[in-house]
């Protein structure tokens, strides 16, 4: 919260208190404003919140612990498919969300440890490519495990997941307040996701200043030195992988139940890269950075989608670049230009021990 408030332009540094209220007001009021432009925009905001959750989780792994993970989306997939197996007509199981969510978190954490154990010795680029391979392996299995026993339903994916039910309250139905007034289900999801995000932020903030968080920072900045002062880097790495994965798993459940449909297509390498770009773009090792990065990079393509097509049609008479191409272009350029022009991200992490400038000044290249 503090980080986020400080990041508010023109206001954050001068009057953090006001900036904080502004952030809260924006968070609560955003869907109401979005609704004025149409229901799709509320949906976009819902997805932005899911991406924020994902980015926060990946930020734990990449930003805090310094482990570059390119297979992050695999944990998202584990979560989404757990929800699909346990709460859909596919196996005809309809477990409540209170069972699905912890189980998915558990499975994702296990997947994180499964990935973490063998790659403990690897760092940097080797780690990146092995995790990428892990993500691809998971995707290949999702895509092909429909034969000879149908487990994942293959490329078709699994349909009609059960919606989230909180205390007998169905989030996918509009909430009828009075005869005329009903709260759209997209709003319900928005505030539910917002609650999850706020909870995660509080948790991560606590984590960052805890022993674990400081141990991660030490490990990221200099693994050898961290070992020398008695940090158990093996456990710390496994913890980073499993905690990050838990976030991925939980957001996967939310994604699956919100969309009501999961298929391998949603868990491609492109999505891993997209989440990584959000973290990098916003600023690694920085909660506010991950949030701002996730909002910008998930909303911008949608805005482009609505602007670019009519603009292109007006200028050229036909559509030259379709929205999906624009999204890829945007993401790849964001990665390249950000690294060249502002390697610490939009909002550089301001913890003393993790500031990229300090590291550079000391000639530490990692």
């Amino acid at each position, binding site marked *: 919260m503090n980080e986020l408030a400080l990041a508010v332009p023109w206001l954050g540094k001068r009057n953090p208190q006001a900036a904080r209220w502004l952030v809260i007001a924006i968070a609560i009021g955003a869907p109401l404003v979005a609704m004025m432009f149409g229901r799709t925009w509320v949906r976009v905001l819902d997805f932005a919140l899911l991406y924020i959750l994902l980015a926060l989780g990946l930020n734990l792994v990449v930003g805090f612990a310094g482990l570059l993970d390119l297979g992050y989306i695999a944990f998202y997939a584990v979560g989404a498919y757990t929800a699909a197996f346990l709460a859909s007509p596919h196996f005809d199981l309809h477990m409540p969300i209170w069972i699905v969510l912890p189980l998915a978190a558990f499975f994702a954490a296990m997947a994180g440890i499964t990935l973490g154990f063998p790659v403990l010795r690897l760092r940097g*680029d080797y780690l990146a490519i092995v995790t990428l391979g892990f993500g691809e392996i998971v995707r290949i299995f999702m895509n092909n495990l429909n034969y*000879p*026993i149908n487990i994942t339903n293959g490329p078709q994916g699994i349909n009609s997941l059960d919606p989230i039910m909180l205390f007998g309250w169905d989030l996918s139905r509009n909430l009828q307040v009075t005869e005329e007034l009903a709260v759209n289900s997209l709003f319900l999801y928005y505030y539910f996701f917002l609650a999850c995000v706020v909870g995660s932020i509080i948790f991560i903030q606590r984590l960052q200043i805890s022993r674990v968080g400081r141990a991660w920072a030490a490990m990221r900045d200099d693994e050898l030195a961290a070992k020398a002062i008695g940090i158990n880097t093996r456990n710390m790495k496994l913890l980073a992988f499993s905690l990050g994965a838990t976030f991925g798993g939980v957001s996967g459940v939310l994604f699956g139940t919100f969309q009501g449909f999961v298929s391998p297509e949603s868990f491609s390498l492109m999505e891993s890269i997209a989440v990584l770009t959000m973290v990098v773009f916003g600023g690694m090792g920085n909660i506010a950075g991950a949030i701002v990065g996730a909002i910008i990079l998930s909303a911008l393509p949608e805005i482009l989608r609505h602007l670019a097509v009519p603009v292109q049609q007006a200028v050229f008479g036909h559509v030259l670049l379709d929205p999906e191409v624009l999204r890829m272009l945007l993401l790849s*350029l964001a990665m390249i230009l950000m690294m060249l022009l502002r390697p610490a991200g939009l909002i550089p992490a301001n913890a003393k021990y993790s500031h990229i400038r300090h590291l550079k000044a000391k000639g530490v290249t990692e």
Partner: protein
Amino acid sequence: MEIFLQQIVNGLVVGSVYALVALGYTMVYGILGLINFAHGDLVMVGALTALQTMMFLMGVAPGMSPIAMLTLSLLVAVPVCMLLAFTMERLAYRPLRNAPRLAPLITAIGVSFLLQTLAMIIWGRNYHTFPQLISTTPIQPIEGVFITPIQITIIIVSALMMAALVLLVTKTKLGRAMRATAENHRVAALMGVDTNMIIALTFVIGAALAAVAGVMFASNYGIAHYGMGFMPGLKAFTAAVLGGIGNLGGAMLGGVVLGLVESFGAGYIEHLTFGFLNSSYQDIFAFIILGLVLIFRPTGLLGERVSDRA
């Protein structure tokens, strides 16, 4: 036995393409310590540029002989890829040479996606039929084992190019400068080597090999599209790691071994898992091998470098 021999043939063909691409990876890694993720996409650019050239030539001179057409399209595709690699190095990698190591890696991923996106814009998302100028009618050197003329060409061309590269690196002055730069930039620079130029040349030579590999890859399968380079790129990287990254011989050996493992894996996986897994799992072998090599023998088959570079 026939299946066994057939898998060897298939493995050698795919493996020699992987080896060609792996050489580019391994040279850049040896000299900069950078995984150039975009290298695989040069394969795609090479193939699609060649395709474009062939289309043009077929329009202009329909009666041209296939060999001439293939040569001409290579003469276009190779320089295009070289130029692209040069630009890439200059604009994206050179400014980051002294940055924290995460930065060039992320840039490389970005460049890879940028190339794919640009290719998507230029050539669209569809799969294009790649003209098979060299015959694909199989011949049978041994009873029951099939090999096509294009596959023979692939093996011969790759072998020739690899031999040329090895000669270049071991026998020429340029090669010596490259080895010196890989050993230590600063000392090499003190000895009068223009290290910036050598690094750029390394990228460019790798790109030329990738372009040729792309054309051969596409003519073997008869298709080309914007995403065709990424997977072979990753596999080539695996091959480079398997052989010992930074080591030319290792890259070639790794490529061939990986090709063989893959074709045997795809051929026998169904029997080994009692029909539970089938050949659609072909792509997982490279990643499993990569994991295993990095865990148990990080130096690769022939390499001496430590894996702990980060």
